[in-house]
């Protein structure tokens, strides 16, 4: 039995780590020990964590699969492409509207997000192969909807029985003529987590869509926003701010996106990466092929939003934009500050734990910091070492068998369309001023010394952490929500935001302050025990008058 009430001694991080590992079989403990780290600032470096390695069978993980990363995360938020899942019905069913990706298709725009498409493979398809059914399904979809693109997602059995989905896609594309058809080999067993699916999606989107539309796009200060999925309307708020600043978003990968945004992404002059883990591949490829530099941004937290806007303005270097950005900040911040200073009186000094994503466990620490809340433990579900320690470790990453089977595509500079956006001298001048391209320092340098950094934190460890360290709030996903709350500790979903959002940008920050204030100060957490449970012994007999 675990009860949250009992803590009260201050636990040393080393003791907490020991507690977490105590119950494991020796082999499991050895492996987990390398994924649980006590953050410390070493000279010019950070301690090395083990990440992006196999989940241990039987240990209740928070992770999902490659298909989820590909179809659910990257392709799910796009509205005018029909996502056809080739497999038994479940995979498509579970990814149907459950991630809360919002989209604005207007009154008559194409919007397939409320739909769910599947070949619903039966045993005969498994035995005799499903290629014919897949081709027929594509034809039926085309006949009913006439979409501009149909994408195919492989599920586990498809890879095992050897259906050649890429050939089916190629043939159908040729046969239909006016509909792009391509496929993702994103079987659930590939890789070790959702992360492999992001990579597969990045490759195929880049190969089959990016660069298709060479029409010039109107607007000044053109950027791509990479790794923003418009969950709970985050993307809408970021778009609002960027528009107000006069910045033109050519494409978003992939919140509230359309086919044409992907096809035109090479027309932007800067790529801004939100979620480093899920989309850095596209950012790199865009630079190599078209000469578009990329920077890391973060619109989670008011201060981070300000920093990111200034960074974009500095890149373009135009005084008009710099002034406009400052004006927008000056206009937006009073409302943010007003709520923040009010909420601070009730949230300051409280503690948080975050186990989510490949970026959010980092980004959301900024929001908590604005509320005076300290993150005492955090980690990612599916990140790699560079997301913890910074991109400088990339050259030293070991490629294991599970990563080796994820295709790496070779990209070269486009002979006609490669165009450096800045001269060498301009880039150098920016860098001399401290401007960083292609740089992400990871979560660890931003965390306090002594904080616990845990990769692929599982249900058992989460409960132990809550029991021992009693944070004021715990953030993870839906699977973790209620076991944490049973312990009397509020839990905020940071994958799909419960029913809330947006939390990005200025208005999002205000929403988040209020939401966390509501959660950590809710009266419900004081109702755990009935009066007779608080003092079970009768000390006197009550006599009715």
């Amino acid at each position: 039995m675990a009860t949250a009430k009992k803590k009260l001694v201050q636990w040393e991080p080393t003791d907490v780590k020991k507690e977490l590992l105590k119950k494991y079989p020796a082999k499991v403990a050895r492996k987990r020990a390398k994924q649980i780290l006590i953050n410390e600032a070493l000279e010019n470096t950070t301690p090395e964590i083990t990440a992006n390695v196999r989940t241990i069978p039987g240990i209740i993980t928070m992770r999902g699969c490659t298909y989820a990363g590909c179809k659910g995360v990257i392709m799910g938020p796009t509205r005018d492409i029909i996502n056809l899942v080739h497999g038994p019905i479940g995979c498509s069913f579970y990814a149907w509207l459950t991630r809360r990706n919002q989209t604005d298709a207007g009154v008559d725009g194409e919007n397939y997000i409320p739909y769910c498409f599947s070949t619903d493979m039966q045993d005969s398809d498994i035995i005799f192969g499903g290629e014919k059914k897949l081709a027929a399904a594509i034809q039926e979809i085309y006949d009913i909807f006439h979409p501009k693109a149909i994408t195919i997602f492989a599920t586990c059995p498809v890879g095992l029985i050897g259906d050649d989905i890429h050939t089916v896609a190629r043939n159908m594309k040729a046969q239909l003529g006016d509909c792009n058809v391509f496929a993702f080999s994103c079987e659930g067993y590939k890789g070790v987590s959702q992360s492999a699916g992001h990579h597969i999606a990045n490759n195929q989107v880049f190969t089959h869509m990016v660069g298709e539309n060479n029409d010039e796009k109107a607007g000044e200060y053109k950027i791509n926003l990479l790794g923003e999925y418009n969950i709970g309307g985050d993307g809408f708020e970021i778009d609002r701010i960027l528009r107000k600043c006069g910045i033109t978003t050519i494409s978003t990968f992939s919140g509230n996106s359309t086919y044409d945004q992907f096809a035109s992404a090479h027309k932007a002059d800067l790529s801004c990466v939100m979620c480093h883990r899920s989309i850095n591949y596209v950012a790199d490829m865009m630079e190599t092929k078209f000469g578009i530099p990329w920077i890391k941004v973060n619109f989670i937290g008011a201060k981070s939003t300000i920093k990111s806007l200034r960074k974009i303005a500095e890149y373009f270097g135009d005084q008009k934009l710099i002034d406009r950005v400052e004006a927008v900040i000056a206009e937006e911040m009073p409302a943010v500050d007003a709520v923040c200073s009010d909420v601070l009186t009730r949230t300051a000094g409280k503690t948080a734990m975050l186990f989510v994503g490949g970026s959010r466990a980092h980004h959301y620490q900024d929001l908590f910091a604005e509320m005076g809340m300290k993150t005492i433990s955090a980690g990612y579900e599916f990140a790699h070492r560079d997301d913890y320690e910074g991109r400088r470790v990339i050259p030293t990453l070991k490629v294991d068998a599970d990563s080796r089977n994820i295709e790496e595509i070779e990209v070269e500079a486009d002979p006609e369309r490669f165009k450096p956006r800045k001269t060498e001298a301009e880039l150098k001048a920016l860098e001399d001023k401290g401007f960083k391209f292609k740089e992400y320092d990871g979560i660890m340098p931003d965390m306090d010394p002594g904080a616990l950094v845990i990769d692929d934190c599982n249900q058992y460890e989460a409960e132990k952490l809550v029991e021992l360290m009693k944070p004021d709030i715990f953030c993870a996903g839906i699977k973790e929500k209620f076991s944490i709350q049973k312990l009397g500790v509020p839990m905020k979903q940071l994958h799909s935001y419960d029913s809330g959002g947006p939390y990005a940008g200025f208005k999002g920050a205000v929403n988040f302050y209020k939401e966390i204030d509501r959660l950590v100060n809710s009266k419900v957490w004081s109702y755990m025990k009935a009066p007779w449970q608080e003092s079970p012994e009768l000390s006197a007999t009550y006599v009715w008058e």
Partner: protein
Amino acid sequence: MLLRHTPKEISERSAVTINPAKTCQPIGAMYAALGIHGCLPHSHGSQGCCAYHRSALTRHYKEPVSASTSSFTEGSSVFGGQANLLQAINNIFTVYDPEIIAVHTTCLSETIGDDLSQIFDKAYKEGTVPKGKTLVGAPTPSYVGSHVTGFSNMVKAMADLAEPTGKKNGKVNVIPGWVEPSDMEEIKRLAKLVGADITLFPDTSGVLNGPLSGEYHMFPQGGVTVAELKGCGDAIGTLALGEWCSADAARLLDTKYKVPCRILDMPFGLKATDRFIDALRTISGTVVPEEVSYERGQLVDLISDMHQYFYHKKVALFGDPDQLIAMTEFLVSIDMCPVHLVTGTPGKRFEKRIKELTKDMPFEVNVRAKGDLFLLHQWIKNEPVDLLIGNTYGKYIARDEDIPFIRWGFPILDRQGHQYFPTVGYKGGLRFLEKVLNALLDRMDRDSAEEKFELVY
């Protein structure tokens, strides 16, 4: 319009399913396994299956749903998942210490041909299963049947834990099918009133509708125990509620252990509940107390009070076969007209039963097993209805077509209460009728002209 691309014209499809009215087998097995006390469900496949099933169940029940996975990699997909499952079993008993692990397969482990019983044998031989602990397994290939089939397969595996002693124990097995924890609790309450000593399995009450008390128990108090399951071979009989969910387990106990069984409909509505109570008192040899007749009378009373609003109202419904069959009978019994019915679960008998139940209706009935919500929506566009009943996904159709909508079935992702308030039995019938009436009259209040807007109905 949210479903703006759905045309009114229906074209036959043979390859693509659009907006399914079913999901895959393993989630059913996971739900059933949660109805065993001290059980950790285990998904033998890629970890995504387990993550998706846990998420869907958690969103529906708003309760912790613990389950583990074999976390297949490409290597295990090629060489077989035995090593992963053996490692998982060891880790699970060491770290979580359940009484029983209920393993179900997935399309992945079925396609590569992993044999659960052979792997279990190895686990027992290697001593990874502590003394007194149990492993149970069910094959649940996702490419056969639906979530209902998976539920049925796990329930059958539970029944097969029976270890008859040869001496009858006087108990009646009741297999409730895939109903809510609140429904299972209600079935137990009714059985207690009738004086029948029952073993209900699975039983998720007390597991997926637990209290908030500042303590987390990975294995809550509820659930049928392994000992009770072992005893179900000594029962005097089995009542299986629902052909799709429960009949296979009941027939297994009948053929293998000579426990006679009766297959009934799920007790939704007056008549099905009547048959359930009547069968229960017959098999257990008890007298139905006045209290139960009184509850029945209250439901009849409500039907008579509300009848004027129900009469000849057209209803479209989708969900699972056992639920739809019972609900169709209920709706017909109160003179409503189910006109469009879709289940995603295969089974020819479904269409036949629905046709029988609706044969006297003044409308043509559209019914389809292995159908989908895209088809249902098209039917509705061609022949509008007054009420839509189904899981949360129905809200998109309801909004586009402006139809009153009652959430009933699985999954319900955007409303709460189904964990706590039953719709089975007479009391459940009262609650359901209240929902129907509210849906219809709220709509009337919204739409009536000012001069027709009334205080009293």
